């Protein structure tokens, strides 16, 4: 197998074919937009839903970290020549997983439990990225994403200590989980094929989706909950 070409700097990036550059820009734009939008529609509003000051302040920190991820990707995008308005949710439609109308603390905890688990898989797939500035960003982001998923798990576990909490968490899982598998894109995606061709990403969409379903099952079963059945993909 041929060794994947590594692109170590912005200068080397500018010398790469347009297909590579366009692929990297797509990923950077997606992360810049969705980290911001997620913070705006989930993390910030959740501050007001927190059950106690400790939960509130942790949510503040999570919101700050998510916003920080947006800033990092946006700054990289600027270095790559992406216009600021192209990295805005006003221009680039955010992912459908953010269309969920957040109403309760239980829902927010389930979102962090399951959506950040999905995000971890996406970020993991960038850790060996052939474009090193993006690889570095992924490595910086990963510990915080893991903390966000743990946040979700720990607070869901707390909620599940009561019968009402169990009902609330299960209800939130039933409503939110069906939205998540779409996060990984379509099988045999042309974008994904290009990403893998250049070593920007390593895994196929369908592999990541399958991996996610396995991990999501495990994490909700540890809470004594279950995942709803999904419509066929």
């Amino acid at each position, binding site marked *: 197998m041929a060794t994947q070409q590594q692109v170590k700097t912005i200068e080397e990036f500018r010398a790469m074919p347009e297909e590579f550059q366009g692929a990297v820009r797509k990923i950077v734009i997606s992360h810049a937009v969705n980290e911001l939008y997620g913070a705006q529609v989930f993390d910030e509003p959740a*501050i*007001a839903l927190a*059950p*106690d*000051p*400790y939960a*509130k*302040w*942790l*949510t*503040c*920190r*999570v919101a*700050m970290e998510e*916003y*920080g991820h947006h*800033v990092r990707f946006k700054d990289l995008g600027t270095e790559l020549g992406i216009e600021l308005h192209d990295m805005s949710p006003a221009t680039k439609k955010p992912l459908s997983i953010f269309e969920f109308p957040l109403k309760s603390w239980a829902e927010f905890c389930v979102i962090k439990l399951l959506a950040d688990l999905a995000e971890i898989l996406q970020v993991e797939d960038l850790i060996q990225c052939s474009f090193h500035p993006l690889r570095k960003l992924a490595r910086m982001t990963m510990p915080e994403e893991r*903390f966000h998923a743990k946040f979700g798990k*720990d607070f869901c576990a707390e909620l599940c200590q009561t019968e009402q909490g169990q009902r609330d968490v299960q209800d939130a899982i039933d409503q939110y989980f069906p939205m998540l598998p779409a996060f990984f894109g379509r099988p045999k995606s042309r974008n994904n094929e290009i990403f893998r061709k250049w070593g920007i990403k390593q895994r196929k969409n369908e592999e990541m989706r399958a991996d996610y379903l396995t991990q999501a099952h495990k994490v909700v079963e540890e809470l004594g909950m279950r995942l709803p059945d999904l419509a066929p993909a």
Partner: protein
Amino acid sequence: MEVDSHTEQLAQQYLRSVHRGNTRIEPVPGWDGARRAARDLGWDRELLAAQITERHNLRRQADELHKPGGCATLLEDSFKAISVAANIALETAQHANPGDISIAKAAVGAFSEAAFDTALSMLTETVAHHPAKLKFALFQVGRWPLTITKKQFFLF
């Protein structure tokens, strides 16, 4: 455990600014005590609601004052500065309490929230005794203003 007179004065000013002047200041010894205080379900939810409403009001006022572009760029600059300070504070807090990253992150989250509200209040040119500035002053003297309940103000 006592607080020094300067800190007590700052704490009293803050409590008066949020109309809780009769609340007793309760110093908290140690990170475990801070966690217990932060999880006190007797916390003053009315105060939280008022703080969030004030945050939204300040943001609207700031956008109005900084037309036509609004204050988003200025807030982003503030955010970056707060992030740098918060990340240093997180490392320090983790070093002091290595077994529990969550309480360290909660402390830094509290600091960041107070700093952000202070940045907003500065963008709207509010008075010196605005609650956001008075709360942040406690962080500036190395304290973590924890929970306000009906009778107590826990201060780490």
